[in-house]
C-alpha cells in the first residue's frame, strides 16, 4: 500500500487508453534514446546477420541478402522500462519466424547479440509466431543508428530493452542465459502488462 503523497494530484492523461498503455507507463510523442555505451556505426558492407548456437547448421546473411528476405510491415506500440510508451510505431523488417524457418534446433531460448557487446535473452516462445522481427526501417526510413540502425530486434510485447539495438545475430541456447540488463538487476522476461521491470517483480 503506497502512502499518499501530500499535495500530489498528478497530470492525468485522460486520453491514454488503458487497453494500450500498460500500468505505470505514459505516452510520449518523442522517441527517447537509451543505451549503455557509444552508438556503433558498422558499415553495411561489413554487416551480416547470423543465427548460430544450438543449431544443426549456422546461417548468415550479408546486408544485401538480408534485406532481400521476405519483409513485413508492422505497426505496434512499444514500452520502455523507463516508463515511456510510444503508440503506433511503424517498422519494416524480417520476422524471426522467417529467419528460423530453415533452422533445425531443439533449443528453447536465444541470446540476441549486438555490435557494441550488448546482449539480451528471450524465450523462443516470446519471439516466434509473429511476435518478433529484425527491423531495418522505422517510419518508412532506414533505421537511424541512434535508434539501433542498421537493424534492431523488435519484440514489442516485452519492455524495449529486449528489442536489442544494432543486432547482429541470434544465438540459440538450450538454457535461458541472462543478457546484459538481465544480469544488472532487470527482470528476466520483462512483460510490461505485468510490470516486470526489475528482478523480483
Amino acid at each position, binding site marked *: 500500500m*503506497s*502512502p*499518499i*503523497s*501530500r*499535495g*500530489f*494530484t*498528478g*497530470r*492525468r492523461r485522460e486520453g491514454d487508453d488503458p487497453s494500450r498503455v500498460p500500468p*505505470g507507463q*505514459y505516452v*510520449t510523442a*518523442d*522517441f*527517447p*534514446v*537509451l*543505451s*549503455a*555505451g*557509444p*552508438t*556503433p556505426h558498422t558499415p553495411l558492407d561489413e554487416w551480416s546477420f547470423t543465427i548460430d548456437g544450438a543449431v544443426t547448421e549456422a546461417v548468415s546473411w550479408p546486408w544485401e541478402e538480408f534485406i532481400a528476405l521476405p519483409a513485413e510491415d508492422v505497426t505496434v506500440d512499444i514500452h520502455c522500462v*523507463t*516508463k515511456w510508451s510510444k503508440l503506433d510505431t511503424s517498422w519494416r523488417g524480417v520476422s524471426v519466424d522467417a529467419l528460423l524457418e530453415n533452422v533445425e534446433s531443439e533449443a528453447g531460448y536465444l541470446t540476441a547479440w549486438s555490435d*557494441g*557487446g550488448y546482449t539480451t535473452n528471450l524465450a523462443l516462445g516470446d519471439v516466434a509466431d509473429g511476435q518478433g522481427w529484425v527491423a531495418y526501417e522505422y517510419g518508412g526510413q532506414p533505421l537511424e543508428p*541512434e535508434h539501433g540502425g542498421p537493424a534492431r530486434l523488435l519484440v514489442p510485447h516485452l519492455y524495449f530493452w529486449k528489442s536489442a539495438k544494432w543486432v547482429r545475430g541470434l544465438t540459440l541456447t538450450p538454457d535461458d542465459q541472462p543478457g*546484459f*540488463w538481465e*544480469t*544488472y*538487476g532487470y527482470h528476466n522476461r520483462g512483460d510490461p502488462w505485468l510490470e516486470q521491470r*526489475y528482478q523480483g517483480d
Partner: protein
Amino acid sequence: MATLRDETPLTKTIRLELDDWSGHRAGQHVDIRLTAEDGYQAERSYSIASAPEDTQLALTVERLDDGEVSPYLTDELRPGDDLELRGPIGGYFVWEEPYGGPLLLVGGGSGVVPLRAMLRHWAAGPRDVPVRLIYSARSLEEVIYREELTRLAEETGLEFHLTLTRQWPDDWAGHRGRIDRALLDQVAFPPAQRPLVYVCGPTAFVETAAQALVASGHEAGRIRNERFGPTGT
C-alpha cells in the same frame, strides 16, 4: 524525507532518512513513486547523488517544466513528507575502487549527479585512481555542486574542468562551448592510458560526447553511458 536544499535555480537536493535501506553503489538510481488521494500514481527514476559512505541518501532533482514528478519534488515537497522509493536500481553505470581507472567523468547539466556520487565515493577511499571531471553547464549559476567540486579539486587530486555553453562571466577563465573532440583531446586522459569513462547527461550531449571520445581513439567498451530526457525528434 529529512531536508531540502536549493542547489541552483532549477535543482534541489533531497536528503532522506530511510527506514530500510540495503545500501547502494555509486552511480545507481532509485525510482520515486507519487500517489494521489484517489490512487493515481506516477513514477520516475532519479540518480543517487550521495556516496555509499554518506549517512543520508541524497537525490538531486532538476525541475522539468513539462514534468509530472520533478515539479512536485522541487516545488511541493516539504521536510517531513513521506516519499515512496524503490531501489537501488542499475548495476552498469557504477564505479567502485576495484574498477580502477584512470577515471574520466563527463557530465552535462544534471547529468553530473551520479558522477558526484562516484567522486564522493572516490574521495572517501584511498584515491589511488587518478580522476578527472569534465562538466558542461549552460551558465555558472546552473553549475550544481560548484563549491563542493571546487573544494574537492583543491583538496584532492581531482582535476576539474568546467565548460560553460551559453553564458559566462566577463572574466571567465575556464572553457567555453560544448564538449567536443578538441576539448576532450585537450583535457581528457589520453586514449593510451585507457581511462574508464562515464558519460551522463541529456541524450544529445551523451551521443555527442561518446562519439567524440570514440573518434579520439578511446575504447568504446570502456565508455559507459547514462542518458535522460527526450530526443526532441
